[in-house]
């Protein structure tokens, strides 16, 4: 399997080149186009709260359609092109055995079945920041396709940093995090427009996105016609 990414940083497209009989699992809604002889089946492909209902719970909680489609190439191999919903970049992280990658739910696009995704795992604190964030834990090995709203910035952390929660794409284990208000008081936090931030500390790698989906959603959403509740 080989994943080719074009049109970064604004309108990325990832084309997965599948060898004969190879498969890849991808987020529902990410398929742009594909060659002949690729069969598609639905899978809830993640552990914990598993199966259809686990996916349903995740979708309801996170506003995220965490169902996956499994694209399997036939005897001739094939190509599937994938893209996320928002403008931005994509990047592949080669996950190695023994490594753990924590991915913000809407930043995950695709990975082969040799990568296991966990939606409920030890140590995950509830993120009630109003941004409906949830994280996936990826373990196993293989290429993990991530998307970012905007450009992706990869940063090595060795110390402490304050990060806006909406700009976080993924991070490796070895990093501790705690949620806090942006400013000292509640009114100050509200007026500053910054909301909640994450204090991250430790040693590891962080991936950030240069735009914040909730901020974009809020800015455009209030200009759109109202909806039925």
């Amino acid at each position: 399997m080989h994943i080719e990414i074009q049109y970064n940083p604004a309108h990325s497209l990832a084309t997965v080149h599948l060898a004969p009989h190879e498969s890849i699992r991808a987020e529902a809604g990410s398929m742009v186009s594909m060659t002949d002889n690729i069969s598609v089946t639905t899978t809830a492909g993640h552990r914990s709260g598993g199966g259809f209902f686990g996916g349903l719970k995740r979708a309801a909680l996170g506003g995220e359609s965490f169902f996956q489609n499994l694209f399997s190439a036939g005897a001739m191999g094939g190509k599937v092109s994938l893209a996320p919903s928002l403008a931005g970049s994509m990047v592949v992280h080669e996950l190695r055995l023994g490594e753990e990658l924590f991915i913000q739910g809407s930043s995950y696009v695709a990975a082969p079945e040799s990568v296991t995704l966990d939606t409920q795992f030890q140590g995950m604190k509830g993120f009630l920041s109003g941004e409906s964030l949830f994280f996936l834990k990826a373990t196993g090995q293989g290429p993990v396709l991530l998307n970012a709203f905007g450009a992706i910035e990869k940063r090595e952390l060795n110390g402490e940093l304050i990060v806006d929660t909406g700009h976080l794409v993924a991070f490796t284990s070895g990093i501790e995090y705690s949620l806090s208000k942006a400013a000292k008081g509640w009114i100050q936090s509200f007026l500053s427009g910054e909301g909640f931030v994450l204090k991250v500390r430790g040693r590891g790698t962080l991936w950030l996105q240069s735009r914040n989906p909730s901020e974009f959603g809020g800015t455009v959403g209030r200009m759109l016609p109202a909806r039925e509740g």
Partner: protein
Amino acid sequence: MVLQSPELEMSTHLNAGRRAGFWAVITALLVALARKFLGGETMFVNRFRAPRGGELVLAPSLSGNIVQKKLDGQKRLFVQSGSYLASTGDIDAKVRFGGLRTLFGGEGLALLECTGTGELWINSYGSVLAIPINGAFTVDTGHIVAFEGNLDFRVKSVGGMKSLFLSGEGLVCEFQGSGTVYIQSRNLSSLVHWLSPLLPS
């Protein structure tokens, strides 16, 4: 704010202009609160200080570019209020309105008149094109990022009231004189116009 070093201090202030008198501050506060609750650009700014140095990474809400402009105390730059990202030094940004229905966002032009010395960062929705004008030039108000203070400008509808509602062009700003206008290649109203018919109820 995207990320910052932990030692940075942040405080929130009303963007009323540095030498604003009492009534100007009250007016600015009421306008700012109204805009915060009814939608529209907030007029609160965050001031970040780093007594021992530090790092601050900022990003705007919409996809597009960031342009850095240096103000030398002589020039005035009018910046569309949604395009103001940050400034350093001694830059004063006064709120100015131009045109119809500007108070609560939407049509019209909510501008920040920037003067003083320092660096100014402005962001665009889409890419930025600098257009030097010598004479007259018309720009759709939603596509204005910034323009030099020596230009005359007037907000009007494209071609009479019928055109305003039918043509989809909305309001335009007619510039006169010599100077540079910075336009952005995308417009939030147009995005809304494109997407609205495709939304479920």
